[in-house]
């Protein structure tokens, strides 16, 4: 069972992984899409009574033999551990991994296809595409000639570190690759899950309203960079860029901001310069 993904492991599908799908359904088998690699301890089947297992190994008459166990473990500990493995792997390969997060419809995939086609001439690029269903986005990326793999989260609302690990196995990217991880379109859940990326990049389009950083502060707090997209529409919508930046800095004083139009190409040079800067850091860290 996947410990970090609420949809259970079987819900997540990484393209290219071996599956047991058939052309017809078996409603009588394969109904357990998760493994139990742990046992379920139950009370003693023989009906024996075990006293003396209370706190301090004693039995106090009239009290149940319960005890208090100190745990102090982070709920996300396992995901964070896997994320650290991903981070080490990226570091070892000089890979800059960016986790792109946004609402659905912010133009994330358009920005990504544009970026991929502009930069693919000068560097190896790979994309991990997260969506609940379909390989449509990975197909869009692959149409640019860039290596992409789709991860379908099933009912899951975010990518987790294990999904990225599996996608990395399938992609097997070369040294110094620029890796984009396009998260599920969702401004809430992906904020909590470290994937091992160097930075989260939050994309917000001008059709969404400048108050979004206040409505979804967790995400803008977790992001290193906010990209304000669809700037070509600014003349037609009541979106105040300055207020949006001010709102974002209320939740995250250090957040960097870029304004682009993935459609017209306006502002993309600054985005590419930002990437180049971070790539140098990723490759220097490798040395």
């Amino acid at each position, binding site marked *: 069972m996947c410990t970090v993904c609420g949809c259970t492991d079987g819900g997540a599908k990484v393209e290219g992984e071996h599956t047991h799908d058939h052309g017809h359904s078996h409603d009588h088998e394969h109904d357990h899409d998760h493994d139990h690699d742990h046992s379920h301890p139950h009370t003693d089947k023989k009906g024996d009574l075990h006293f003396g297992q209370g706190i301090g190994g004693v039995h106090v008459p009239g009290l149940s033999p*319960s005890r208090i166990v*100190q*745990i102090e473990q982070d*709920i996300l*500990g396992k995901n964070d551990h896997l994320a650290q493995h991903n981070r080490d792997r990226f570091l070892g390969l000089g890979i800059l991994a960016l986790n792109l997060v946004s609402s659905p419809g912010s133009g994330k995939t358009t920005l990504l296809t544009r970026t991929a086609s502009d930069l693919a001439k000068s560097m190896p690029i790979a994309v991990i595409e997260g969506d609940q269903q379909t390989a449509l986005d990975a197909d869009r990326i692959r149409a640019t000639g860039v290596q992409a793999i789709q991860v379908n989260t099933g009912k899951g609302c975010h990518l987790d570190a294990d999904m990225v690990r599996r996608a990395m196995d399938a992609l097997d990217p070369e040294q110094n690759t620029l890796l984009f991880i396009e998260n599920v379109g969702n401004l809430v859940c992906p904020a909590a899950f470290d994937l091992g990326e160097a930075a989260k990049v939050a994309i917000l389009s001008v059709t969404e309203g400048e108050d979004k950083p206040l409505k979804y502060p967790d995400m803008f*707090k977790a992001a290193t960079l906010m990209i304000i997209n669809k700037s070509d529409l600014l003349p037609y919508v009541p979106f105040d860029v300055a207020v949006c930046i001010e709102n974002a800095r209320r*939740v995250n004083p250090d957040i960097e901001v870029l304004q682009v139009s993935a459609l017209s190409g306006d502002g993309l040079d600054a985005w590419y310069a930002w990437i180049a800067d971070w790539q140098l850091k990723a490759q220097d860290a490798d040395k």
Partner: protein
Amino acid sequence: MHEMSLAEGVLQILQDQGQAQNFSQVKTVWLELGELSHVDPDAIRFCFDAVTQDSIAQGAKLEIIRTPGAAWCHDCSKTVAVSSLIDPCPECAGYKLQVTGGDDMRVHELEVE
């Protein structure tokens, strides 16, 4: 609904600990959820009940300890109390705040048998 994933994470910890510390039934779980953490207590209660069905923690009571939010104000050069990520500094009304506490999500302790 990432609370479902988090509840699964809690259950995994309980199961691992059950094996390591030799218990077969969890009666109470004390969960520390910071005021500034990525989680809604009501949602995690709902999810906890759902994921613990037929498990070591079936019917377990969930006690949520809310740890208070705290941030370092760069302008005041001191730690101040905040209860949300969009709160200003209560002293100077500024926003140059860095969260220093209350963003934890942790299984604190268990009552088991």
